[in-house]
């Protein structure tokens, strides 16, 4: 199959939902929607009145089973060029230039199999959520776990949905770690992700796990190095580095 030429199209904002203090989810209806692979992203382009253009790529949060629309979850970067516009100016009904879906490296779909270990830091959870929503939409029972690092309880994106998925599905389990301010009474992890934590979360999967790691560069480096030291085959590891700010 020859893939269609990647071109810009005008998406219309159908909904904006706050997720945390720093993140919002934006739904767009696309005139040339096509099914994406979970983990892919869209590029967003802004054009100033003087013709200056800038673009950023944002991961798709919604599953391909949601037809005609995509949802992007975007972290607001205070000195960013694109995310403050999305957060502070964009309204439902507005149009925005988008192109995608893009990327073939950091993708997972049910047909690739499991068990699935997702490791995310901050807004790096977004493409992992597309994978989990796809898995749920397919009623897959491939064992899946997510290890999700956040600064504080207020910074956890999709907490209710992740816990809801786990309650409805004994083959899925989320693990949280808090690097600055754990919730009151928290008895779980309260440090940066390290080799010990990874080994504990990965234990039932042994070395069969397919692992997807997404987050700030330093987190991804640390996790990828730890996985290689644990002798996980390198072809089972996929990484996506967000930079400090969600790229």
């Amino acid at each position, binding site marked *: 199959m*020859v893939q269609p030429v*990647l071109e810009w199209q005008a998406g219309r904002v159908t909904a904006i939902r706050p997720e945390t203090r720093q993140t919002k989810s934006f739904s767009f209806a696309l005139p040339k929607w096509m099914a994406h692979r979970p983990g892919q992203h869209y590029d967003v382009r802004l054009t100033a009145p003087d013709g200056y253009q800038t673009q950023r790529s944002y991961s798709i949060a919604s599953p391909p089973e949601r037809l005609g629309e995509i949802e992007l979850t975007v972290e607001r970067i205070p000195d960013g060029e694109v995310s403050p516009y999305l957060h502070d100016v964009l309204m439902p009904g507005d149009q925005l230039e988008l192109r995608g879906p893009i990327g*073939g*490296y950091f993708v997972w779909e049910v047909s690739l199999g499991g068990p699935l270990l997702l490791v995310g830091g901050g807004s790096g959870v977004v493409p992992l959520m597309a994978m989990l929503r796809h898995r749920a939409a397919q009623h897959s029972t491939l064992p899946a776990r997510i290890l999700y690092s956040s600064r504080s309880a207020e910074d956890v994106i999709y907490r209710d949905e992740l816990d809801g998925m786990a309650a409805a599905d004994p083959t899925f389990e989320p693990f949280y770690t808090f690097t600055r301010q754990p919730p009151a009474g928290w008895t779980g992890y309260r440090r940066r992700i390290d080799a010990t934590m990874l080994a504990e979360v990965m234990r039932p999967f042994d070395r069969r796990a397919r692992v997807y790691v997404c987050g700030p560069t330093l987190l991804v480096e640390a996790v990828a190095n730890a996985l290689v030291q644990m002798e996980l085959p390198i072809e089972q590891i996929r990484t996506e580095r967000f930079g400090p700010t969600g790229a």
Partner: protein
Amino acid sequence: MDNDQADMNTALMVDGNAVAGQLEQIFGRDMTMAIARCAGCARDAQMGALMAFIRGPGIVLRCPACQNAIARIVETPSATYLEARGAAYLRMAPQA
């Protein structure tokens, strides 16, 4: 380069996935799974896994093993420039 600047560059680094759109615009296909052989150290890397520096006026892709600059991309209002002297070759599987 002093240490502060090196740390800053590391912190601002992303990977080839972040420029998949620009690459696809140039090549007309997804390139994140394509293999780039580094002309410096001869190691192979998937382009999605190259180190990417995107905060400058252009994009620089570097080898994750030796940090050689594999490719540079600059978009101007009238043209796109791709300089890839740092790649011995790119290898693309046929598209499914």
